[in-house]
């Protein structure tokens, strides 16, 4: 995965750790933004996750985020909470895998 994005393995793992850390915050923010019906905030926050996941070569998350982003941009939050929970699950898996790689 590191080679695919033009980084060496150590750089990639550091970025992955930062991605996991920031995504936890973003996904928490999304929970309240979705509950409050704030499509604009959902759009801005999910954009962050989508962009980083794409550049780090994590399609399992970027594809879900992309759909959320496109819908939120059109002020549509239907299915957003389910998608958010799906992202949380994917992030959990990614966290477990990255810990295995570190150790």
């Amino acid at each position, binding site marked *: 995965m590191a080679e695919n994005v033009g980084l060496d393995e150590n750089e990639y793992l*550091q970025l992955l750790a930062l991605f996991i850390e*920031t995504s936890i915050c973003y996904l928490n923010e999304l929970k309240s933004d979705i509950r409050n019906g704030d499509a604009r905030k959902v759009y*801005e926050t999910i954009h*962050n996750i989508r962009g*980083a996941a794409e550049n780090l070569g994590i399609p399992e998350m970027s594809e879900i985020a992309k759909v959320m982003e496109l819908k939120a941009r059109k002020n549509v939050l239907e299915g957003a909470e389910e998608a958010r929970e799906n992202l949380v699950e994917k992030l959990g898996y990614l966290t477990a895998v990255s810990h295995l790689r570190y150790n």
Partner: protein
Amino acid sequence: MVNQNLETAQKGSDNSSDNRQKKVLVVDNNPVMLSFMNNLLVSHGYKVSTAEDGLAVMKILETERPDVIITDLIMPNISGEKLCRLIRKMPHMKDV
């Protein structure tokens, strides 16, 4: 796609007489993207500054004149598009 464009740009600059290290300012509210772009650009020989928002950019531009600014468009407070319009109004930045 970013990698291919950087390699093409580097080949172009290698052919020119100007060997000064190019300065790039990267703007993104996402720290992952800032780190990613910093690592990528530095590995290709660019000198990199980073900023997380429009206010930080204005502060940097008081003392620096980058050759290129790469900015995310979707950012809270000042969007990338609005930031570009603000930068274009600065006399010393109109050619960047």
